[in-house]
């Protein structure tokens, strides 16, 4: 019994020593400041009509109940913060778009116990410069995204949000100026 207690103590000590890292959850303000340096935080609103809702639901593969989506916009750039469930909990994902192309994807908060690798730059930078292909109501990114072993559902969630942000961007005035 004494030996067991010694082992248990060593075990718990090892565990407590291993806990020394504190990763940051990226705030909305920080995300905004990265997307629009030195500009005032001001929300824009995109209202969803029936047609846009149908497209969003087709793209996501599930219902989208929100009546409107808030976002940031300036000149030809928009930034979106959207939640999407990977396996069971929502991942909060930020997408910055300019000229109908993604220029940044940021995971603001990852809540699930597995699949957190989608927050790493090696994964998110794959989205840079991608745009949205629409082929007979089938939505695709303009390039394949390499997956992550053991994080399949989280990877799919980030891909869906990236496409949704591109679709939403196209509905804003900030996109119309970029298309000219």
């Amino acid at each position, binding site marked *: 019994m004494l030996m067991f207690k010694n082992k248990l103590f060593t075990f718990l000590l090892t*565990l407590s020593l291993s*806990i020394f890292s504190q*990763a940051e959850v990226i705030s909305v303000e920080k995300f905004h400041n990265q997307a629009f340096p030195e500009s005032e935080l001001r929300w824009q609103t995109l209202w969803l009509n029936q047609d846009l809702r149908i497209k969003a639901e087709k793209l996501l593969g599930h219902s989208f*109940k929100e009546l409107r989506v808030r976002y940031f916009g300036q000149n030809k750039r928009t930034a979106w913060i959207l939640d999407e469930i990977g396996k069971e909990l929502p991942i909060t994902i930020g997408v910055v778009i300019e000229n109908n192309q993604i220029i940044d994807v940021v995971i603001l908060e990852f809540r699930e116990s597995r699949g957190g690798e989608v927050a790493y730059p090696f994964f998110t930078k794959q989205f840079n410069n991608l745009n949205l292909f629409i082929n007979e109501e089938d939505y695709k990114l303009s390039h394949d995204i390499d997956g*992550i072993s053991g994080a399949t559902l989280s990877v799919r969630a980030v891909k869906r949000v990236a496409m949704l942000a591109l679709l939403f961007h196209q509905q804003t005035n900030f996109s119309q100026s970029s298309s000219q």
Partner: protein
Amino acid sequence: MFKQTLLAAAVTTASVSIYATPTSEDMWQKIQEQQTEIKALTTQLNETEIKISAAADAIENNVSAGSKLAAWAEKTTVGGYGEMHYNNLDNQLDGGKDDKDELDLHRFVLFFGHQFTDDVRFYSELEVEHSISGEGQVGEVEVEQAFVEWDYSETQSAKAGTFLMPVGILNETHEPDTFYGVERNSVEKNIIPATWWEGGVSLSGEIAEGLSYDAALTSGLYLEDGKYKIRDGRQKAGEAKADDFSYTARIKYTGIQGLELAATLQYQEDILQGETHSSGATNIDGVLLETHLTYQTGPFALRALYASWNLDKALSATKTGADEQKGWYIEPSFKATEKVGVFARYGAWDNQASDSADSEITQLDLGVNYWLADSVVLKADYQNQTVPKGQDEFDGINLGVGWSY
């Protein structure tokens, strides 16, 4: 004539008085009035926007605001997976077990989770194996996972309950659409032994970017008298003997795109849980070492795994060579299109590896996955075993359909 001229003069005078240029004071007054009106309209517009937003908030939140059941449902998640298999395997051993020609709803699984607070959640996995369970039936109902998880910091969490052991490739992630082959691979099944869950407590978290750890204190394995295969030691957290515990630590690196490198070390205090086999074997402690690699680049992927158990030599009294049990496999694959992937796997395992007798089984698998949708898959493969002389050797084809949601 005079009358006409007079009339024209009167009309002209009246027109001039009606359209006379306003004075600057008139203009200023009009501007002021319009300004006031614009302000009023702007205020009205803003108020309308606020009302619309409030209405939208109310509509969007209506479900949770209006119903306690709906609020509960919003915090509760349901998912699941399942797989049905058809095996057509011929036993190459004359006089051995029957050929395996069967159709089996191998697994039907439901996930239930509930988020109590932002930091505290519950997760569970309820599984029916082989479709039907009960007295004399072939299947089982199992609770593979039922734990409470607490995020005590941004990157660290603790678990208590029954959970999957942090070891191997398939043990924790085994939805059928995530791996190749109809059946789970034999090496992880017979050596790790997947699927493996225990009751206890664990800590998990990130040490640095791409580097994470798991550490667990759990119930241990238990081999009844005469049993020696590590897979037979799973107690499945059902009135599990807890005279002796197990200690597990895993380190995992996922800091490079497509790469996962992991190693698990586990110490079992006594897999006989204080009992003595009729062979005289007693007090069998053991160490599991498992390490694996997965790598994916473009359409190419590779999985490789090695696992070995080193148990107290006394277990050899129950079965010769059983104090060492080990296995490995390597599995390259190629996803030709988004929907079609092919693979090859070669693996070997041995549950009596410490003696010189030939007891190793090898298996070659070749097959294809066809994804009907992201998480719905059809599978087909061919397996060819090589076994020690006098043992059952199953070769043939497997077909399957799997789904998760």
